């Protein structure tokens, strides 16, 4: 974790619930999140956006409580939002305004004096990589420009924490990389806590240090990326050109469960943190494995689990 900020939680929720009619969008979410680059993962409709909106008071909380930057959400809305930035998932630009006017206006809404707001707006537009197009009306912007503009308006008032809801949506791969690099630098270089909500595992893996996986309004996992990646179930798939029976017999002698998959691969549960015992066995038997696929780590597994929960509910 970067040493930019104190380690006291920036977000604390206790039994946070949000109900829309009969549907529970958030179901008793209790979290204490330290500053950093935080990835909020989950399939579409998992409750990520609702979680962010409840924290920002864009949605009223049904039950439970939440604290943002040490302040009670609901009681000190304006004070909290003065120190928070947010990029919504959908477009939210005011038509008829030029990009730089829009960002200046957003800064003024956060309490920056006009001259300062205008200067900061240009600095942030430089930061997000917008050139002369900042003087064009936002109505004419491409998706990439709009995403950059959204990021600029979210950080123009120098927030302590910024919530980014699917910031790379609708971008080409190059644009995605650029935006994610900018987001990454916010925490790593400038010490601004980033909460990145996404349904793209790759995006979150690339820039986040802490991961929260949500499915059906419940938190499935909250841990550091390093821990999640290190946690594996000690299994692997072995692809052999032949002699599968020999390996099955050897595994039985080692007391390792082994099964032949329909695709011809052998799934071996070696129960070790690394692949070394399995490799040693294969070397002993002089078996030339074509490929060894380690079992997915806890991050991938939990994400797949979240997807399955979501699909089952649908």
């Amino acid at each position, binding site marked *: 974790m970067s040493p930019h900020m104190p380690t006291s939680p920036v977000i604390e929720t206790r039994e946070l619930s949000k109900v829309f009619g009969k549907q529970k969008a958030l179901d008793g979410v209790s979290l204490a999140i330290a500053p950093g680059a935080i990835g909020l993962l989950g399939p579409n409709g998992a409750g990520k956006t609702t979680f962010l*909106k409840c924290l*920002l*008071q*864009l*949605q009223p909380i049904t039950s439970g409580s939440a604290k943002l930057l040490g302040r009670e959400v609901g009681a000190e*809305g*304006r*004070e909290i*939002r*003065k120190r*928070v*930035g*947010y990029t*919504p998932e*959908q*477009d*939210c*630009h*005011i*038509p*008829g305004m030029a990009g730089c006017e829009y960002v200046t*206006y*957003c800064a*003024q*809404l*956060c*309490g*920056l*004096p*006009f001259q*300062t707001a205008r200067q*900061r707006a240009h*600095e*942030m537009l*430089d*930061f997000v*990589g917008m*050139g002369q197009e900042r003087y064009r009306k936002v109505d004419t912007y491409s998706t990439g420009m709009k995403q950059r503009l959204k990021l600029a*308006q979210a*950080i123009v*008032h*120098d927030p302590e924490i910024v919530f980014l809801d699917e910031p790379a949506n609708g971008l080409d791969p190059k644009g995605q990389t650029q935006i994610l690099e900018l987001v990454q*630098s*916010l925490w790593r*270089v*400038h010490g601004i806590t980033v909460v990145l909500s996404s349904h793209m595992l790759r995006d979150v893996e690339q820039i986040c240090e802490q991961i929260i996986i949500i499915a059906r309004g419940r938190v499935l996992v909250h841990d550091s990326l390093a821990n999640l990646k290190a946690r594996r179930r000690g299994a692997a798939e072995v692809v052999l050109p032949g002699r599968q029976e020999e390996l099955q017999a050897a595994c039985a002698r080692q007391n390792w469960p082994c099964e032949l998959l329909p695709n011809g691969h052998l799934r071996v549960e070696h129960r070790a943190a690394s692949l070394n015992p399995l490799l040693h066995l294969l070397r002993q038997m002089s078996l030339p494995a074509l490929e060894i696929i380690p079992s997915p780590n806890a991050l991938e597994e939990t994400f797949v689990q979240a997807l399955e929960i979501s699909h089952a509910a649908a």
Partner: protein
Amino acid sequence: MPLHDTAYKHWQGAHLGLWQRRWAIAKNGLTACLRIRWMANMVVLCWGAGLAAAILLFLVGQLLVADSMVAGWTSKLSPVLQTFATLLTGWLQDHPEISVGALQNVFFYFFGRELMIVSIFLLGIAIPCLITRDLACNAIVVYSSKAVSRGDYLLGRFATAFGFLALTWLGPVCMAWFLGNLLAPNWMFFWHARLALENILVYGLSSMVILSMLALGVSASGIKEKYTTAFWFTWWILGAVIVPIALHTKPWLRHLSFSFNLNEIALATFRVGDNIKTAQESIPVLGTMLSGIRPGTLATLAIPNLAGAWLALAAMLALAAWIIHKRVKPE
């Protein structure tokens, strides 16, 4: 490639207060209104009308001085006008509360009424800039994620509508009053015309509050600019059509028109009918002149019973508030 440092910089300055943030919202709305094609020209036209009214008051004021240039011209033009000017000079000394006070009161009632029509028309054009556009492009989410609340946003937008009406109505009318009396031959004009100013402010401010609220309600009723503009004009024009028809059938239907209700308040505030009657009774010559006014016309200028107007406006305001409450949300 930027030529200067593009790195992120932290900001340590002091934040401005809440009222300045609200002002930023109001200013943004006003700027958007004035950016509409020909809108700025129309605002200038309103001020031009105010200037014209001031010139008219100046000319009338000059008639009240026996040795003024205008009085000289009138004597050259016609002996009748000269007699009238001489009489007016006498009235100024004998009945200044009528020749200045009542005259300006009646004048500003009619001037204000005509200019209000222009203001309502322009407000209809500017209605999408209040809330409609923000709803259409989801900008409410941006406002709600900044250091302002929904109430601050609505207050800012209310100030936009109010400011717009101040630019197109109250400003020009007040300017006409001030300039008209400033250019008058006697400083006492300010004193005698004070009632007209009081009435302008009382009626102006109350009608602007009501119109601003109604405009916000209409603006929040849809996300299509054409729809909200059409709504406003349909309501306004339909009301104007209903009023003369309903007078002879179901008079209460006239209260569906907001402009009719506002006119009732204006009549009660300026007391135009009373002013004319007093002038007729106090000044014989004026009485002879005003006797040409038809009794029906005088009846329309009589002080109305305001209960119906206030009740109808209260219902309209409640409906507008309900629409705003339901529609102006982050989601």
